[in-house]
C-alpha cells in the first residue's frame, strides 16, 4: 500500500455573501496516495472546485474563507503555512489545471512566456535553459514543432492544444500532486480521449499523484484508482473505483449510476432519475442533505447529519442506513 500524499480532514470553506453564508465545502475529508489518481465526482455546485482551490488556498477572500479543517500535504498542514510558503508550493509541488482551456491561459502572453515563467520561478533556471525545458515539455505533451509554437498566443491554439499546454505547464516542475479540475469537460469526446490518454501516460512517467475532478462517471471509471463522491459540499462516499461501481453504498451514488444512459446496455431501460433538486447551500436542511431526494430516507435522516465513516476497509460512507455497520 502506497503512502499518503494528501489528506484532507474536515475541510470547511464558506462564502459570506449578502444572501447568507454559502457553505460550499462543509466537512470534506479524503486521502490521496502517492502515485494514484483520486476521482472527485458530484453534481454541479457540490463543492468540487472549491475543495481543490482550498487546497492551494486560491479562494478569493472576501467573500470566501477556509473556516476549518486540515490539509496535510506530505505530512505538513498547508493551512498553517504563511502565504509566501504556500506560494512556493503552488505550481511547484502542487500544480493545477482547469476545466476551461480557452480562458485559463492569459490571452496576451505567448504560450512560451507563460510556460517559461513558471519554470524560471520554481526551478531557478536561467532564461535559456528554461526555454529549452519548455520546448521539451511541449513536445512531451504532443505539440508538434514545439520550438515554433513557443511564440504562439493561446488563441492560435485549438482547445485540445491549449489543454495540452496547460498540462505541460503544470507538469514542468515535476509536481508531486496534480489537481485537474474537469480538464476535459469543455472538449469533444475524441479530444477528451487524447487528453485522458496523455494524462495517464504522464502520470506513469512522472509518478505524479492526480486529483481528478469530474462529473463524468465514465471518466472516473476509466482513469481513477479511488473515488470520492460529493453532495452539497460534503463527501458522501469514498472507495476504490471497482468497489464504487460494483457495490456502491450511498443512495446518492446509486442514483447517479442509475440515472446514467449507457451505451453498454443491451436493452433500453427506463432511466431512474434522482427526483428533486440539490439543496440551497445557504439554507441547508438539518440532517442529511440528500434526505429530501432519497428514496430510502428515514426519520433520523431528516434530523441528524450522518457521520462520514469507514464502513468496510477503505470504503467510507455518510449514511444512516449503515448505522450499525463497520468498526466503531
Amino acid at each position, binding site marked *: 500500500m502506497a503512502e499518503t500524499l494528501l489528506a484532507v480532514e474536515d475541510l470547511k470553506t464558506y462564502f459570506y*455573501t*449578502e*444572501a447568507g453564508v454559502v457553505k460550499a465545502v462543509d466537512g470534506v475529508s479524503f486521502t490521496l496516495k502517492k502515485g494514484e489518481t483520486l476521482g472527485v465526482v458530484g453534481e*454541479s*455546485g457540490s463543492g468540487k472546485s472549491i475543495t481543490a482551490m482550498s487546497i492551494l488556498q486560491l479562494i478569493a477572500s472576501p467573500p470566501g474563507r477556509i473556516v476549518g479543517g486540515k490539509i496535510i500535504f506530505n505530512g505538513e498542514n498547508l493551512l498553517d503555512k504563511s502565504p509566501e510558503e504556500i506560494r512556493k508550493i503552488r505550481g511547484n509541488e502542487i500544480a493545477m489545471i482547469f*476545466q*476551461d482551456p*480557452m*480562458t485559463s491561459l492569459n490571452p496576451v502572453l505567448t504560450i512560451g512566456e507563460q510556460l517559461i515563467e513558471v519554470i524560471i520561478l520554481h526551478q531557478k533556471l536561467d532564461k535559456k535553459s528554461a526555454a529549452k525545458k519548455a520546448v521539451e515539455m511541449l513536445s512531451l505533451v504532443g505539440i508538434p514543432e514545439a520550438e515554433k509554437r513557443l511564440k504562439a498566443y493561446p488563441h492560435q491554439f*485549438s*482547445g485540445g492544444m491549449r489543454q495540452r499546454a496547460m498540462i505541460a505547464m503544470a507538469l514542468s516542475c515535476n509536481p508531486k500532486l496534480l489537481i485537474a479540475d474537469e480538464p476535459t*469537460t*469543455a*472538449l*469533444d469526446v475524441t*479530444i477528451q480521449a487524447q487528453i485522458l490518454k496523455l494524462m495517464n501516460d504522464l502520470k506513469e512517467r512522472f509518478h505524479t499523484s492526480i486529483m481528478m475532478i469530474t462529473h463524468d462517471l465514465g471518466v472516473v471509471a476509466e482513469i481513477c484508482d479511488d473515488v470520492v463522491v460529493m453532495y452539497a459540499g460534503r463527501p458522501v462516499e469514498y472507495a476504490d473505483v471497482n468497489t464504487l461501481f460494483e457495490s456502491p453504498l450511498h443512495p446518492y451514488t446509486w442514483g447517479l449510476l442509475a440515472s446514467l444512459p449507457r451505451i453498454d446496455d443491451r436493452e433500453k431501460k427506463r432511466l431512474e432519475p434522482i427526483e428533486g433538486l*440539490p439543496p*440551497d*447551500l*445557504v*439554507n441547508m436542511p438539518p440532517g442529511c442533505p440528500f434526505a429530501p431526494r432519497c428514496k430510502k430516507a428515514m426519520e433520523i435522516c431528516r434530523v441528524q447529519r450522518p457521520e462520514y465513516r469507514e464502513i468496510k476497509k477503505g470504503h467510507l460512507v455518510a449514511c444512516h442506513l449503515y448505522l450499525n455497520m463497520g468498526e466503531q
Partner: protein
Amino acid sequence: MSGSTTLEIKRNRLQPRNGKRESKGLWGDVFKRLIRSKSALTGLILVAVFLLVALCAPLIAPYDPITDSDLVKRLEAPSSEHIMGRDSQGRDIFSRIIYGARISVQIGVISVSFSLVLGVALGAIAGFYGKWLDGLIMRLMDILLAFPSVLLAIAITAVLGPELRNAMIAIGVVYTPHFARIVRSTVLSVKTTEYIEAARAIGCSDLRIILRHVLPNCMAPIIVQTTLSIGTAILDAAALSFLGLGAQPPTPEWGAMLSDGRSYIQRAPHVMIFPGMAIMFVVLGFNLLGDGLRDALDPRLKR
C-alpha cells in the same frame, strides 16, 4: 470555436441556486438591490431631492427668482436673509437656484428624450436588420462621433440660435450616437439569443420580436445610459449656457448663473460658487444612481 457554448452554460449553472427568494418581479429585485448599496441610495436621494425641489420650487424659494431684483444691493454677500447672497441684479441666489432645478429637469428630460428616441430607433434598426442599413446608420453615427462633441454642440446652437431649447436639441443630437451604439450592441447580442429564435419559431413577426422580445431585454443598458446622460446633459447645457449659447437671462439656469458670476469672481465669489455646487450635486446624484442601476441591473452581480 469548439465547446464554447457548453462552457457558458457551465458557468451559468453556478448562479441561480439561490433563486428561491420570494419573487417581487424583476423591478422589485432591482430596486431592492439598488437601495442596498450606500452610494446608489445617496444618488437616489440626491435625485429625489432635486426632483422635489423642482416640483415645489414656489413653496421653497423665499423670493421671486426674476422680479425681486434690487440693483442697489447687487452682489451682496450671503447673509441670514439671503443665505447664498445676491447676484448681479440684486436677486436672491438661493431662490434662483431653487427655480433653476426646474430648468435643469427640463434640460435633462427633453434633451435625453430626444437622443433616447432617436438613438433607440436607429440602434434597434441597425442592430436588428444589420447589413447595409447597419453600415449606413453606424457610419453616420461615427461621423457624428468624429466631431468634438463640444464643438458640435456649439455649432448646432450657432445654427439654431442661442436659446435653451436649441441647446437641448444640440445636446440631443450629440448624445444620439451614444444611445444608438449601446442599443445596437445590446440588440446584436440579444438578437442571437435562443429566446429570440424561440420567438421566431413560434411564429412571431419581426415587429413583435423587436418590441416584445428584443427591446425589453435591452432596457438595462438603456436605463443606465439614460440616467447617466441626464446628469451629463445638465452639465453640458450648463457649459453651453456658460458660453452664452444656452439659457438666456433672466432664466435662472445654473450654467447661465455661473457665467454671470464669472465677472465677479474676485469681488463676489459666492455668485459663482453656489450654482456650481448645485450642478455638481445633481450630476453626482445622477451618476451615483446610474452606477447603482448598472450594478443592480447586472445579473452577473447577483448574489
